[in-house]
């Protein structure tokens, strides 16, 4: 099986290692434009390296696009034209400005990896979207300590594109609603020149109240933390993070607690979390949990609405 990876940064390396760890017989082809970096890694990894895709004419069985979002669309077109059978694109697909999609191709998946968290899968299985009254999503991290350089300090980055998109996807995945109106939106730049903190409220067409808070300059956070709070129409409340699910009654009394230990799952090879491995195994199978292109465009449209709310230029 031939696998092409566009971009060999942190995510390209992660997916390569997981796939290579799980399926040692795969053949890898990697496009990495940085000459010095390419010269180093090509000596260290069993793969064929290219500076660009101009000489890659034959179709690949699987293509992973793990470049900055600004070139996702161009590389996707190249992959479709080449006839690649299955395409995976890292989130957010093309960034918040990519809200129209007119290419026709099957089997295109977007890397919203948090869907594969065992707690999220529990929610998906046990909470009926029609019973949801309100949902709050949060993502906290200390990702940016100094002003980033390059694309990470530009319009394709920011906490909403890079972190918030994950949570928006989860909210859409859980509520099964991707049409929402923004009712408030506050954006703040603290370290970078783009949004470092975003606080927004929204309403779905079905009347579900949605709120979100994203902050990637939170100094006291060691490791990124996401959480989802759900209130059902019957008054039951759920607090969900990557490690646990807490269920509260109408009066706020804790009535049930499940941890990831209760939902323990095994994977044949572990790197960075069960969810990363499961994402790759799902991709190699039928992609039944993975976000598709419509899901990803839905996330982008919502990000666009949040960032353009209040009618002043974002950056």
């Amino acid at each position, binding site marked *: 099986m031939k696998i092409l990876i566009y971009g060999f940064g942190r995510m390209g390396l992660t997916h390569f*290692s997981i796939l290579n760890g799980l399926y040692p017989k795969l053949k890898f082809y990697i496009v990495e434009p940085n000459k010095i970096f390419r010269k180093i890694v090509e*000596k260290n990894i069993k793969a064929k390296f290219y500076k660009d895709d101009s000489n890659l004419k034959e179709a690949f069985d699987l293509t992973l696009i793990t470049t900055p979002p600004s070139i996702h669309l161009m590389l996707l077109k190249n992959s479709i034209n080449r006839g690649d059978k299955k395409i995976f694109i890292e989130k957010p697909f093309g960034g918040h400005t990519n809200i129209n999609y007119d290419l026709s191709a099957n089997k295109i998946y977007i890397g919203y990896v948090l869907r594969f968290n065992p707690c999220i899968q529990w929610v998906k299985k046990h909470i009926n979207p029609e019973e949801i009254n309100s949902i709050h999503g949060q993502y906290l991290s200390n990702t940016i300590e100094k002003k*980033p350089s390059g694309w990470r300090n530009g319009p394709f980055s920011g906490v909403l594109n890079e972190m918030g998109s994950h949570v928006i996807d989860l909210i859409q995945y859980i509520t099964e609603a991707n049409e929402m109106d923004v009712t408030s939106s506050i954006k703040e730049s603290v370290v970078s020149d783009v949004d470092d903190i975003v606080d927004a409220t929204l309403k779905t067409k079905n009347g579900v109240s949605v709120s979100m808070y994203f902050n990637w300059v939170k100094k006291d956070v060691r490791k990124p933390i996401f959480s989802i709070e759900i209130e059902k129409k019957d008054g039951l409340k759920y607090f969900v993070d990557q*490690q646990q699910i807490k269920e509260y009654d109408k009066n706020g009394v804790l009535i049930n607690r499940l*941890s990831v*230990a209760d939902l*323990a799952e095994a994977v044949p090879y572990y790197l960075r979390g069960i969810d990363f491995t499961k994402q790759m195994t799902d991709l190699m199978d039928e992609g039944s949990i993975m976000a598709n292109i419509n899901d990803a465009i839905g996330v982008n449209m919502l990000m666009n609405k949040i960032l353009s709310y209040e009618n002043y230029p974002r950056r």
Partner: protein
Amino acid sequence: MKIILGDNQFFGVNHFDLEKGQQTKLYFNDVDKIKNFINDSLSVGMDGFMINSNEKGYEIIDKCNFNNDKEIHYSIPYPHKYANMINENGMMSLFKYIYKNTSMINNITVGSKLLFSRNLKHLVPLALDMEIPKKLKKGSYIYIQNIITDLLIGMGRADILIHFIQTVTKMGYKPGIITLNPVMLDRLLKNKLKESLLKELIICFNVNKEGFNVFPYLNKVEELIKSKPNYKLMGMSIFASGASNIPSSIQYIKKLKLDYVVFGTSKIENVTSNLQRLKA
């Protein structure tokens, strides 16, 4: 079986409860509190302690003195520092940082090898030079963190792990490898190392009665333990990150006949009671 104090509680790591992790991190907010807790744990009978090379961990080793009879298990690197660096400035920033922060001699001798061969294994001595505090006593264990080990396993570069074992040994320390893929690692190490190097090596991996975060499967890890490899075995996450019943977990762990276990707690009473149960 030797019992080692873990360090997760000092740095806010709790795989079961994020809130609790944050609380203990706030409690251990300065180096003196950490040092005192380590000393108290050693004085009640723990055989040693494990500490990571993050800012506080480095300072503790560099500035504090501990009972010489006790073992120090020092793990490198602090992964979040490097992850943030890559997030901010890309993959090449990692190489630049290492060059900037290692001694000139190492840069010339080892750095030139790296430049000439482009083999990443030559980063190992540079990383060790940068991450190990000068005052870390010889004979201490130096571990490579699981995020690096497991990445190298996936990349198919177990030879870099072997180079790590050889380099650490040459420096007068003992090697340790933390992994969440112990069965894969065992396969990769088999027949690749001299007996003398394996004798001091510790492989540290998750094992608990519940099978929580035990990869690939609990029964496979139990089989590995029963096979009695030539290196030492250390169990971590033995209480399933706090999810388990402690007495029954200890009963289970004792049956495995590991060489070491490491556990973390923020309460000295827990250190004492777990120790008593493990040693009984």
